[in-house]
């Protein structure tokens, strides 16, 4: 399950399986149903797969079944977190072009209300003579989270793996956490989200998936712990075509954007990584690499900007 120890081949295999699982999601038959095997007729179409031993094998497409998603974790397990991990994110500002594919993926996978964005990409125009740049901003999952400090009902909490989550079944909607967050990263479901498909509506809620979002509660980036449990990267990381987001484990000192993997400390040292508004004492878990030697001029991002 360790992202960092997975070799590239195994990683691609797991991606492939996920892809097939997602593709097969439309069929409603569970492979654990009685008589599921007898109903299969080989279609003659073969698919190449990587076996557990590292061999390439061919399997008839009809024999590939959708596996029901892993059972949801309990509320107490979701509050405890994944042991032994300390998740961090590094965002390379020299790569961001304001394509906002990260935002689209995150909104889509979490069925966020159409007015809201959990991930924002800000045009940072700091000073009179400094050069503007695009800054993708996720929740900082602070180690001294002001939001957690002020929540009256423990609806938002920090886990042992560093992730700050929201329990939408407990949130009373007082919005104190929104006032407390200096990064303005939290959004509120002023009405019930309008993007939730019916199957998802009925899904049992779990703070790790943050789906379905509920009316009158707060929502925010959750670092996709449900993906981490499956050994996968958050949706924003996978969605960015420029590989702007690096995600990883501080305990293993390693971050990856799916294609490249770096030693976290080396990356921060060599590219002068910094944290946003760290003088406030929030101890964010998100680091930024300054936009030196940019891949794209700032204006390229203006084409895509909707304000």
């Amino acid at each position, binding site marked *: 399950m360790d992202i960092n120890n997975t070799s590239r081949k195994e990683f691609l295999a797991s991606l492939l399986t996920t892809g097939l699982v997602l593709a097969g999601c439309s069929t409603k038959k569970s492979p654990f149903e009685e008589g599921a095997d007898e109903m299969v007729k080989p279609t003659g179409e073969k698919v190449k797969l990587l076996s557990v031993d590292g061999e390439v094998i061919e399997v008839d497409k009809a024999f590939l079944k959708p596996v029901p998603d892993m059972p949801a974790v309990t509320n107490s397990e979701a509050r405890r977190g994944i042991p032994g991990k300390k998740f961090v994110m590094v965002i390379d500002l020299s790569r961001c072009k304001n394509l*906002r594919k990260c*935002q689209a993926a995150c909104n889509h996978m979490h069925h966020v209300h159409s*007015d*809201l*964005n959990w991930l*924002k*990409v*800000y*045009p*940072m*125009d700091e000073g009179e003579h400094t050069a503007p740049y695009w800054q993708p*901003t996720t929740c900082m999952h602070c180690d001294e989270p*002001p939001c957690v*400090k*002020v*929540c*009256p*009902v*423990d*609806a938002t909490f920090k886990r042992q793996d560093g992730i700050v989550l929201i329990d939408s079944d*407990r*949130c*009373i*909607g*007082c*919005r*104190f956490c*929104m*006032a*407390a967050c*200096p*990064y*303005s990263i*939290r*959004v*509120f*479901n*002023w*009405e*019930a989200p309008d993007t939730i498909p019916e199957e998802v509506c009925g899904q049992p809620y779990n703070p790790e998936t943050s789906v379905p979002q*509920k*009316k*009158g*509660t*707060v929502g925010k980036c959750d670092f996709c712990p449900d993906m981490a449990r499956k050994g996968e990267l958050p949706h924003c990381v996978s969605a960015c075509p420029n590989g702007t987001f690096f995600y990883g484990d501080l305990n293993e000192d390693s971050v990856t954007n799916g294609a490249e993997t770096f030693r976290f400390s080396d990356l921060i040292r060599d590219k002068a990584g910094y944290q946003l*508004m760290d003088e*406030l004492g929030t101890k964010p878990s998100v680091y930024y690499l300054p936009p030196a030697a940019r891949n794209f001029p700032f204006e390229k991002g203006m084409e895509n900007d*909707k*304000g």
Partner: protein
Amino acid sequence: MEHSNSLRKVKKAQLHPIHKEKVVLSDEQIISDLLPRKFGKLGIIWIAILLAFCAVGMFAYYRQLRYGLIVTSMRDYASWGIYISNFVFFVAISLVGSLITAVLRLTGVHWATPLTRIAEIIAVAAITFGAIIIIVDMGRPDRFYNLFLFGRLQSPIIWDVTVITTYFFISCLLLYIPLLPDMKILLSNTKAGGPSKLYKFMGSFWKGTHLQFRISKKAINILCIAIVPVAFSIHTVTSWLFATTYRPGWDSTNFGAYFIAGAFLAGAGAVNVAMFVFRKYYKLENYITQEHFDKMGKITVMLGMLYLYFNVNEYLVPYFKMKKPEVAFLDSLFTGSFSILFWSAIFGGMIIPMIVLLFKKGRTPLPMFVCGIMIVVGAWFKRYLIVTPTLLQPFLPMHNVPESYKHYFPSWEEWSIALASLSGALLIITIFVRFFPIIPIQETIIEQHEKEHHH
């Protein structure tokens, strides 16, 4: 019409305030003057208006429950709006109970005795609707019990819930216990029927014995002492709902004292208004005298100067430095989108009333009433200026949001609900006055006797 004639007479008295001779009133006179009366036409119209506002507000709240907080204009940036500023306003006004009832009682200021019940009912009504408006602001009021099942002691909201509940109970007791001696008078002077049953239920055990008076006096004393730290706590903790965040305009060490000073001023203004209204409507010129207006006026000026001092500290010092996060915020208050509101609240709500009340002619009933209204209205807008402008100047740019998220002007639902809460508080006061004497009868009688003994 008879009404306009008496108005002219009262006006004349105000224009030439003569030092009134201390009127000696008989016990029977006091009782008949101060007994609660049925409402006249004006009273019925007043109640009808208040009920109408409440009804519209309840319909608006039904819409809010059904569709969500989307019916308000609050969005992700202005995530707190006039519900919260109304809440702060209510907590501020309710401090007057502790000021007049407790502080003035403890310091042996006897001229304030007629005003204690006015102050206390304002306090109870305000704190009740403060609690109600906070529940209205919640996104999930159906989960209100979570505050008690899962409450975190570390959260300033839990501190607020605790101190406000405590203050509510102490205020109710400070309203009830001094009311007991009057209950006996009410029972013996009211015909059998609805109100009489209420008085019986509330206070028939009060016989007026020495022992009862002694216990009552001691209890009131203890409550008066207890309420002072609680009163300071409620507004300090409410200010900490803002001061415990990093935002410009809120990240201030000044907030606790600043809020309390503002609360006392707003409460004093409210009492001035109530004094005038009750005196006029119930013809209580012998009980709420020119002297009362003069003394309350002086107190109001003092409180106004104190609040002005805190405002100077709160706004001029950051203005000197102009730290980057505060530049946009201060500009919006001084010269930008909130400037008209800001300067109106400062001048109309503080400076002009203070100047008027500095003069002896200003400390007469009608000017006091007008200044009281200006102070209270100014206080309401000042609380709004504390809550929302800060939220509209976040640290990071307002981006990737719909255009409506970058502004805030309350929707009709918010206005109705806010007005309904204010009407509800006024309704509590009005209904109280219908059944209970707004000026303590027994205490007035006792003090009248003490005055006679003096002579």
